[in-house]
């Protein structure tokens, strides 16, 4: 177990994992703890041949998997939809480090060990009291190009400080423990197709609760989005011939013997999978990416969007652990650096593929952290946190404001929210998807919409 995680966090992760495995018997969830949206939806494995994707399908509601190839083709033939990518910083990322008020006296006195020096990170151009965390320099570059809207204190009043509950609120788009569909899932239920699971795509291997629907199918990438069979010192024509021979050997040498025939069949399937996944393995993205799973996921995603597949809402987790109860400086720097450098590459990739105007990215976390540091070079759970919306089409202007800590801390020592996540969701639905938010977000009428899209 990661020593940086609090017990509540680790346990809720376990609970979620178990809950996601529908039918395996749900763990006992403590009173008051919400079930993740989508709990109990059955999963069906499916190889989408036309897209070359091994998928886990959710919410088929009696739809035959065979109908899906046709549904995807139909959706792909229609007008290109805007795409929304939701990226989760898991654990509660520290806003006062991500964007830090270098010369605020309370910042320095409440964070004697953790406070970053003014010279450490570049000044935030929209509010010179703030500096970017050094790991977020790639985002500051995108910001300078007008491609990032920053939410310096996003949250909701009376924030719940349980990872499990607060994350659930963000996922379902309401402070409602009972809601069992995700906010993007409800959008797809209204605007999506009955037979195109790619419209809601989870890249982390299992259904993201954010995408849990009630009526229409959604999907999770089941296998890695590539199936490479590389061999050292075999390439070019010879590699192509070798891979064909795998198939030939499988077809011709199976025979009557059951074990041999199984081995042959598997070789044929392996060859087929390799062929089908080849286009999207992100093998040759037009721009360089840093390494890592997150980079693989986003470069594959850019390839899928570039290939014209009918995606609308996509969800995945960022690298790093943000539940920094101890050892915060190194852990946070690591996570933010990996996340921001990859996001910058992804943005460049989308632009190189000519699809950047169709995509925006939202980066969020379930809460921020306590203003005052704890005794182990870390911080405990807080309230308002950091958020970013990224893309060529975003307005590139702060949403909400930064308050000096003198005025910006609540009774519990946490940051006061200056933007509500539900207002942001309403704005995304209305300005990006052209969708009336009142059908999607409970109490939508009561939230102020920031201008997200230019």
């Amino acid at each position: 177990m990661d020593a940086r995680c609090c017990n509540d966090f680790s346990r809720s992760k376990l609970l979620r994992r178990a809950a996601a495995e529908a039918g395996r018997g749900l763990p006992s969830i403590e009173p008051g703890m919400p079930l993740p949206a989508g709990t109990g939806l059955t999963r069906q494995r499916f190889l989408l041949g036309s897209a070359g994707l091994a998928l886990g399908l959710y919410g088929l509601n009696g739809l035959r998997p065979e109908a899906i190839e046709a549904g995807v083709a139909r959706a792909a033939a229609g007008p290109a939809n805007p795409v929304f990518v939701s990226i989760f910083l898991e654990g509660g990322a520290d806003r006062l480090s991500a964007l830090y008020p270098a010369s605020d006296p309370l910042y320095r006195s409440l964070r004697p060990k953790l406070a970053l020096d003014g010279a450490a990170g570049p000044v935030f151009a929209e509010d010179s009291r703030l500096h970017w965390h050094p790991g977020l320099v790639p985002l500051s570059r995108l910001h300078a190009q007008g491609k990032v809207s920053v939410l310096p204190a996003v949250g909701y009043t009376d924030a719940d400080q349980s990872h499990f509950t607060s994350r659930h609120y963000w996922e379902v788009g309401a402070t409602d423990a009972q809601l069992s569909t995700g906010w993007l899932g409800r959008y797809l239920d209204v605007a999506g197709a009955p037979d195109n699971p790619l419209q809601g795509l989870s890249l982390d291997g299992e259904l993201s609760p954010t995408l849990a629907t009630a009526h229409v199918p959604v999907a999770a990438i089941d296998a890695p989005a590539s199936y490479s069979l590389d061999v050292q010192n075999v390439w070019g024509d010879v590699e192509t011939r070798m891979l064909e021979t795998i198939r030939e050997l499988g077809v011709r040498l199976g025979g009557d013997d059951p074990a041999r025939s199984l081995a042959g069949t598997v070789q044929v399937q392996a060859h087929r999978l390799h062929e089908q996944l080849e286009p999207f393995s992100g093998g040759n993205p037009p721009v360089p990416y840093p390494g890592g799973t997150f980079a693989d996921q986003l470069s594959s995603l850019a390839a899928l969007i570039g290939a014209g597949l009918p995606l609308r809402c996509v969800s995945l987790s960022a690298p790093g652990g943000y539940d920094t109860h101890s050892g915060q400086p190194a852990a946070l720097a690591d996570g933010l650096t990996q996340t921001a450098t990859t996001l910058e590459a992804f943005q460049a990739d989308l632009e190189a593929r000519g699809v950047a105007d169709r995509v925006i990215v939202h980066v969020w976390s379930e809460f921020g952290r306590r203003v005052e540091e704890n005794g182990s070079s870390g911080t405990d759970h807080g309230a308002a946190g950091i958020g970013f919306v990224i893309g060529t089409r975003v307005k590139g202007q702060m949403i909400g404001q930064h308050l000096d800590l003198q005025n910006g801390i609540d009774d519990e020592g946490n940051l006061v929210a200056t933007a509500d996540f539900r207002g942001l969701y309403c704005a995304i639905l209305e300005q990006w998807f052209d969708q009336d938010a009142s059908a999607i977000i409970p109490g939508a009428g009561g939230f102020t919409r920031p201008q997200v899209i230019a």
Partner: protein
Amino acid sequence: MSPPVYSGTFGAREAERLLWRAGFGPRPGEAASLAALGLNGAVASLLATGKDKLKGPKPKDGRGHGLSPNDAWGHDHLWWLDRMVRTSKPLVERMTLIWHDWFATSNNGVNSQKLMLGQNETLRRLALGSFRDLLLAVTSDPAMLLWLSGAENTKDAPNENYGRELMELFTLGADRPGGYSETDVREQARSLTGWTYQWKHSGPTKFRYDPSRHDPGTKTVFGRTGTWDWFDAPRLCLEHPNHASFFVQKLWSYFVPTDPDAPTRSALEQLYTSGGYQIAPVVGAILKHPDLYTGPSMVKPPVVYTAGLLRALNRSIDTSDWVWLDEQAGQQLFYPPNVAGWDDSRWLDTASFRGRWYAAATALGKTSLDPGRNAGKLPADETQLLDRAIASVGSPTVEDGARTLLLDFGRNALADADADWKLQTYPVLIYNAMRQLLLALPEAQTC
């Protein structure tokens, strides 16, 4: 009546199958030398007792350091894989693997590589001895006591976990006519009470039987009443009328994929019970049975496949990659998926195939030829290239069908060379690819 014995040709091909089924495949030349002993001599040599001499360089992790199997993550797997590669007693090592699957204990529940290796040593020591001794040793084994809650089973709070699996998975089988009842499970749990251990900062230690935690009352198991304890509980199972048939059927299934016929079955059961639960005579009879040589083939378990690659290539353990490669191929040692062991029906699918493919690629990596440095040094002739490739992977038997397809591959790939540099380099690439294909053939995944 004794079980039938195979009387057909016992040549290199049969010896090769025997070495895969009863061990981890041949080292170069080993099949021929085993064949020279004849069937009886070959099986006798596999069963021969004596000290195991490990041949070849000692195992190293990827940084050139020796292994710390008790502590370092993955080194337990590497340590055992190394024994499989270097052993001079392949059948003992293979039986140890069979017992690891039979009494499947996972470090996921035990959380101590040291205790897992302790159990492994017990399984190896008793691998071809008496099943009664083995079962008693497993019943009191610290890793097993943790894994199936034996050490939490006390007279005040009986825990049925071990008592149930002892019968269901280890000795009798579930839902068979004349089997055990739920009352037997509860009574066996009471018999098995009394084991405990202490917690030290280093982990659980001092596993012992504490009479004050044992339920001393009378228990009735399979209709037999007595003040049974942990020593009696396994014995009662061995004496149950369903045990011998369970034992024979299960042991047979590790070596032969089809069921034994009725006469074979009863002959093996008799061999087992009349021999006082000795394992070696039954294994010997199975290894000589005609079904092993004339029947269909079996999928090689992933670690058997991997160990076999290394044996054939005379390569020692010099990287930690084998841990994740075997995990991808579906078998990380000391981590069976559950107490029922590995599900061998899942050993070949697209995911595990890729694990095997990369295991082969990794095994061959060190001896693959660099096309830059070897340009122009290999013949542009598919037959010569294939023969060289076969010799370089330990000269396994390659059937005619595979040979034809590999030659087609070589010929077509050579014909692609439409420039001088290609004429120089393609033979090298083709040689490398042929080696890879030889190790991934359907006949190389099976035995």
